[in-house]
């Protein structure tokens, strides 16, 4: 006699135990420390911080360890943890001109005040597997030089001084917080940038790439890409002034794009903007291109039906935690729904015969 399927609870417990064992791998191999991940898989840590919307390298390293290196799973862990944190307030905008840069390049000028700093980049490495790393990962000490005074002016500032690039009107209004208010469309630029900043790197990259290939082409130059640490300051009402509460590593990308203007209106270049946690430059550049593509309406450009121009499409699908959750939920049982479709199809087949 048939007995309704039971044992969901035990199945889950067993699966979790197995998962924990697999995560650890062969116990004969030394366990990976979260400090090792933080130090030696720093770019993975950065991505988890950027898309997890939480600047905490140690927790990001823990999430990577716990998720067995599945970065979207790690981002998910960080997001869920973030939910439990109170929101104390908003910082005052970080001043990226005061960034301690470890990298700063401009594609639009050969040189500029502050200089070009390549920094720790893969850009000019030859992508050859370095078999020596299999045996021994010791690195020779890199040449050093004393840090220069911190203030590195923005390249777009030079263009702005001559009126060659559009100026964003400064505003003191606190932007809405995507993690505390539902996304409502149409969204303003601040909200779009938030969404892009925490959006999936692959998705944003693909969209940015599509603009380069002609789906809403916007002729982007990397005006400036800079990576470094910035002080975070917050107004403390009890004190009546702002104090530094810590520092964060950031990647900032400012693109110089397609100019607009006419015979009577002096043409100006337009901008795209990307800002992300950690050293995440692929993401920051992609973000700037997509930001620029989404601005077509405000800049009076045509909607050519390109995915990167479609705010609702981009913002609704950029979040990999939403995407992966919904995608993977089709693994859950759906037999009640399937049963009702089955009955329907049977009934329609009867009617058709």
């Amino acid at each position, binding site marked *: 006699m048939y007995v309704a399927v039971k044992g969901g609870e035990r199945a889950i417990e067993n699966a979790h135990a197995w998962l924990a064992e697999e995560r650890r791998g062969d116990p004969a191999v030394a366990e990976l420390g979260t400090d090792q991940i933080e130090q030696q898989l720093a770019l993975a840590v950065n991505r988890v911080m950027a898309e997890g919307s939480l600047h905490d390298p140690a927790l990001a390293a823990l999430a990577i360890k716990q998720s067995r290196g599945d970065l979207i799973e790690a981002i998910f862990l960080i997001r869920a943890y973030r939910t439990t944190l109170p929101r104390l307030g908003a910082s005052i905008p970080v001043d990226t001109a005061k960034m301690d840069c470890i990298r700063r390049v401009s594609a639009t000028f050969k040189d500029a005040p502050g200089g070009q700093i390549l920094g720790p980049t893969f850009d000019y490495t030859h992508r050859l597997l370095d078999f020596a790393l299999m045996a021994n990962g010791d690195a020779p000490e890199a040449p050093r030089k004393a840090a220069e005074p911190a203030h590195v002016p923005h390249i777009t500032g030079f263009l702005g001084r001559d009126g060659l690039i559009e100026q964003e009107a400064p505003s003191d209004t606190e932007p809405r917080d995507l993690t505390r208010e539902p996304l409502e*469309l149409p969204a303003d630029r601040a909200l779009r940038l938030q969404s892009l900043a925490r959006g999936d790197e692959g998705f944003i990259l693909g969209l940015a790439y599509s603009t380069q290939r002609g789906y809403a082409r916007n002729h982007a130059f990397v005006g400036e890409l800079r990576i470094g640490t910035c002080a975070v300051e917050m107004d403390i009402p009890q004190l009546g002034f702002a104090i530094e509460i810590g520092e964060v590593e950031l990647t900032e990308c400012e693109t110089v794009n397609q100019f607009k203007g006419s015979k009577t209106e002096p043409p100006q270049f337009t901008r795209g903007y990307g800002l992300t946690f950690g050293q995440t430059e692929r993401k920051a550049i992609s973000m700037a291109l997509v930001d620029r593509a989404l601005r077509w309406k405000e800049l009076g450009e045509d909607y050519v039906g390109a995915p990167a121009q479609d705010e609702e499409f981009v913002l609704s699908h950029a979040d990999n935690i939403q995407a992966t959750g919904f995608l993977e939920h089709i693994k859950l*049982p759906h037999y009640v729904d399937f049963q009702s479709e089955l009955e329907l199809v049977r009934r329609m087949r009867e009617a058709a015969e």
Partner: protein
Amino acid sequence: MNAPQKNTTEYNFAYLDEDTKRMIRRALLKAVAIPGYQVPFASREMPMPYGWGTGGVQVTAACLTPDDVLKVIDQGADDTTNAVSIRKFFQRTADVDVTERTADATIIQTRHRIPEAALTEGQILVFQVPIPEPLRFLEPRETETRKMHELEEYGLMHVKLYEDIAKHGQIATAYAYPVKVEGRYVMDPSPIPKFDNPKLSDNPALMLFGAGREQRIYALPPHTKVASLDFEDHPFEASKANHNCDICGAGDTYLDEVITDDRGSRMFVCSDTDHCRTRQEA
């Protein structure tokens, strides 16, 4: 699902902090005040994935008190893996009593079913909702569908039903069958089989719907009038498999079809496992 890494006692009662719960309760109040209207709310990331009941879990967390007795079902059953997982989550983060008995529960979180036993006044039924927008597959744009609701432009919904009949001879929607609430808002009842639709109307329990990924909450207060969309000459029909339950013999319950061997033998059993067991014990 990975276990939270902190000691569970470090989390607030039912995981969410009180500010978040207040925010959700405000949305719930608004939803109750405007039955069938989708209220945007700032859904949080939960420790289970989107699409796995995060909306329902947040609604349950916002409603739960230490004295509540919680029941969680998925596909009508208490023992399906996702139901187990969500029940354990609340046992761990809220330490509430749980039950499998519909009659004993004060809050029931459900995925895809309404229990067979009649609900009573004071009970809350929380639905997990994947796509809250009933017009979504006719019109993909949120800005446009919100306008359609605002202006009560529901002609398109009936075009879909018309097309079904023209093509299949009947309305070819078996679950997530759209309803109209108090003659105003068209609502997606979540993917319950249409067999369950009549239970939505004039139900003494409070029904709350949470869609986490889509950031929407909506509600049916007790005794709300809910009508399934149809045509006068093709009326709505709450259908089920034409069998009785092979275990308890019930002829009026929604049935799961179970394949029992590889020669195509099958049997039909109640999808609501508590209801089936209660009948066997009686």
